């Protein structure tokens, strides 16, 4: 660990503010402006204010890094700006109160590289995110950018490029994990002109933002990967399909295309070769299903975004009936690194069948949520407890949901499971788009299955019967189980529906939509049974199945709950034991929250009778000792 020098006032310094969407929503633009202004007002020499794309640690946003020391500031506000400028940028004394604090030890960590969230990651796809200004092609070129393209054009045949990507073991990061090199080869060998190369930047999974961060933080790596792919496959035209809800990504990719064209990396006769490639941006209208490759191509053609059956595959008949290939942002962002460092280097990372790194959007009941990139094969436990910092509030781990809305929920026994395509699939889940939601003991697994299914159900395109009608039927069943109206045959029916929808749906949306239900049925069947057979929600979550009671031997009659109850369901008086009118109670839990901890008189139960008086009675409980 380098010492934090406190007396290097005249040193050259650059403060980089993160301008990823997360930090921008936390006023990163305003912070940047305030910093610029303050630095200018103070007339500080050698101090630069710059910005980068997303660092991934959105939990702590807006974040800033001061280089060359590598000091990392978390949760910066405009109000912090004067102190940062005066103390650190002018006097060389870092502002300790803005250091990141380890959620477990509580220790303040000044340097970016010492933060566990970062130092356990291995960043290939996100290598430049947060490290360079995404709106300057020169920054990208200074890190060796577009050298891989040059290498391909000057030293390699398209076949050699394909061979290199094949040997690297790179598999598609859009979810299905199909070998990228093979897809390129199909297109190279396909008959028909022109050939299209498409980048899938639709990213419709709720909670996933890795593609957005890559485009916002390092757009040129996506372009370089795409140009290399076009060269290898013989494509003359390309599209980047970006959802319109990503205006910053659209803006930065457009700017990057313009800069790339000006430098001669895109357009006619790239780098004076006879290879030409025209690249367009197409904005999607935000339907999840438009991320599916055939629906995406229909959408580019201006048709309703609905998948179609394959075969014929896009390589033979894709966009406008021409041979096409479609790759995810991350797959393409990896390509320049593979070309630069070699297939052998890349394939040394990861497991036997899953090479390289994967990016996850870590969220849910986890201390450090954010975007992480880890080598394939890392155990779930390491992601959750080391990088993620564990579960806050001393709660117990219950399950982790991977793969986005159509992924599965894995229980504790799978924590030592390696994270790779095969292992996750074998457990009934999937890699998918890289969503990772951590659930704790307070999560009802039926409710969570209902939540994910409600997304896929609403996003079904409607074309085919099993998905359109089947997911609705499953959702209705889950909803009635959560309401406490489950029927005995429901578990079998869910299982049967799930099985047939998986087998019978046209595209992977329908084929995978039952996954959250099927995996929770597999690993948490007892919770389903408790709901249906005992009217009990073990997680004490489902409103219809829980009750709140005020314990007569604990209640001090303080009246806080009575004053806070939104439905006036609580009766009581001074020094009288309060009583909840169960008819009026809407199970909001406010009383439980507000009842002073030293009394802890309110309990939440499910399918349990608690002996309480029907009317307020005088308080008998002794005043608890007020410790301290």
């Amino acid at each position, binding site marked *: 660990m380098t010492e934090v020098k406190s007396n290097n006032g005249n040193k050259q310094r650059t403060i980089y503010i993160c301008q990823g969407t997360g930090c921008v929503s936390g006023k990163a633009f305003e912070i940047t402006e305030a910093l610029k202004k303050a630095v200018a007002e103070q007339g500080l020499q050698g101090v630069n204010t710059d910005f980068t794309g997303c660092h991934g640690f959105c939990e702590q946003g807006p974040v800033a890094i001061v280089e060359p020391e590598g000091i990392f500031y978390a949760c910066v506000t405009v109000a912090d700006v004067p102190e940062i400028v005066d103390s650190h940028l002018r006097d060389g004394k870092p502002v300790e109160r803005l250091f990141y604090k380890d959620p477990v030890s509580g220790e303040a960590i000044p340097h970016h590289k010492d933060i566990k969230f970062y130092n356990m990651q291995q960043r290939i796809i996100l290598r430049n995110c947060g490290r360079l200004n995404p709106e300057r092609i020169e920054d990208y070129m200074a890190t060796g950018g577009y050298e891989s393209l040059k290498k391909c054009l000057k030293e390699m045949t398209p076949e050699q490029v394909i061979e290199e990507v094949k040997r690297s073991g790179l598999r598609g990061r859009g979810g299905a994990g199909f070998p990228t090199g093979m897809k390129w080869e199909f297109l190279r060998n396909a008959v028909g002109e022109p050939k299209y190369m498409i980048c899938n930047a639709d990213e419709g999974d709720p909670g996933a933002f890795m593609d957005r961060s890559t485009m916002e933080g390092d757009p040129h790596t996506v372009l370089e990967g795409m140009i290399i792919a076009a060269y290898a496959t013989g494509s003359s035209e390309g599209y980047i399909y970006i959802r319109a809800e990503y205006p910053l990504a659209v803006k930065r990719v457009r700017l990057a295309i313009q800069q790339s064209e000006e430098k001669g990396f895109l357009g006619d006769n790239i780098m004076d070769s006879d290879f030409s490639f025209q690249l367009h941006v197409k904005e999607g209208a935000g339907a999840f299903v438009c991320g599916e490759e055939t629906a995406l191509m229909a959408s580019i053609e201006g048709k309703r975004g609905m998948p179609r*059956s394959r075969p014929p595959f896009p390589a033979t008949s894709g966009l406008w009936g021409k041979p096409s290939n479609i790759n995810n942002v991350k797959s393409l962002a990896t390509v320049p690194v593979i070309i630069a460092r070699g297939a052998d280097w890349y394939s040394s990372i990861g497991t036997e069948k899953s090479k390289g790194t994967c990016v996850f959007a870590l969220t849910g009941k986890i201390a450090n949520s954010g975007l992480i990139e880890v080598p394939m094969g890392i155990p779930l436990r390491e992601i959750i407890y080391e990088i993620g910092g564990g579960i806050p509030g001393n709660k117990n781990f219950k399950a982790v949901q991977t793969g986005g809305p159509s992924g599965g929920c894995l229980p504790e026994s799978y924590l030592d499971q390696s994270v790779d395509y095969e292992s996750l699939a074998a457990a009934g889940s999937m890699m998918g788009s890289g969503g990772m939601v951590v659930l704790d003991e307070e999560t009802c697994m039926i409710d969570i299955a209902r939540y994910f299914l409600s997304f896929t159900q609403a996003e079904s395109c*409607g074309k085919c019967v099993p998905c359109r009608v089947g997911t609705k*039927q499953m959702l209705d069943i889950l909803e009635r189980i959560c309401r406490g109206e489950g029927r005995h045959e429901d578990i079998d029916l869910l299982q049967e529906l799930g099985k047939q929808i998986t087998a019978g749906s046209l595209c992977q949306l329908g084929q995978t939509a039952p996954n959250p239900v099927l995996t929770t049925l597999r690993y948490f069947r007892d919770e389903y049974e408790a709901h249906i057979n005992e009217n009990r929600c073990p997680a004490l979550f489902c409103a219809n199945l829980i009750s709140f009671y005020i314990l007569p031997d604990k209640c001090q009659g303080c009246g806080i709950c009575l004053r806070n109850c939104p439905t006036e369901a609580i009766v009581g008086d001074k020094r009288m034991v309060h009583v909840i009118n169960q008819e009026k109670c809407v199970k909001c839990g406010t009383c439980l929250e507000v009842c002073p901890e030293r009394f802890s008189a309110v309990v939440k139960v499910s399918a349990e009778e608690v002996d309480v008086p029907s009317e307020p009675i005088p308080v008998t409980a002794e005043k608890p000792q007020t410790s301290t």
Partner: protein
Amino acid sequence: MEKINLTINGQEIEATKGMTVLEAAQSADVYIPTLCHYPDLEPYGGCRLCIVEIENMRGLLTACTTPATEGMHVTTESPAINEVRRMTLELMLSTHPCDCLECHRRERCGPYDVCLRHVAVTDRCVVCPSNGTCELQKVVDYMVVRELRVSKDTKSVPVDISNPFFDIDRNRCILCARCVRACQEITGVGAIDMAYRGYAMKVATFGDTPLMDSICRSCGECMVRCPVGALTPKETFHPEREVKTICPYCGVGCQMYLGVKNEQVVCIRGDEEGPANHGRLCVKGRFGIAEFVNHPERLTTPLVRKNGQLEEASWEEALAAVAGKLGNYKGDEVAVISSAKSTNEDNYVMQKFVRAVLGTNNIDHCARL
């Protein structure tokens, strides 16, 4: 045309290259249930009933979208296929109003019979115009579905009766998209499309207006392809016999069958064998024949004006009258108006006659008036 050989259910089959698996099966009389497929429309793969197993191909594939290839081994019935098909069909039925579908008495029930299963009168198959011709009924019978494991969830939205010739009852629609594809692929109009997503999906015009307020041409190509009773003519007839003829409205020469009952034309059907129209008709041919043919004031013989009065005459008489008078005029003294209802050939001969024999360019055509 190049032939290919494949095996369906163990049976060797010769098919034509370019056929789908479904077409190959149909050409060999192997039945595969389907509701969204229609011979002259692009494959859709939405109803999922035609799923089959194909050796060396992953999962269950829709026969209607999968190209048949040399040496393919196809299985059209298996426990796995039937399980999926049955569930798919049950799901489809859960949104379709006719509870009679699952009833073994369906064919024996009349409209006024007492239903022992308490199916509402309005939900009975007997009140649906497509009863008996409904393709969903056929598939249900083939699959022998007698009970639904899933809950019924039908809707009751108003029927769009804005079009003077046919109605859209979306409550009965199974969203096969045949109508949408017909309107786009056959007529090239694109008046209707699928709107909204998922469970809310429905056939709609631009802006979800009544059909009559859209660019619909009322040709009814959508209607004839609807497998169920969702798109139906205002009145349904079951003719006693059919008479093959050519549409009298214009020179295209669309072939059609007139449905006849009690010696009246009651309905029209396009003739799929007709080389000019392949079964397709426009609004006039499809909906405008019966009323016009049956009209009491329709002329059935030529009329010749005698002493200021139009009187019925024979063709010989009428032609003689015209020929006799034409001789009195020369060149631009005459003008001739021909009819759009005549064939192209007749119109051609007419203009030739006018220009070459009568010696004038004063020839026009009623379609331009």
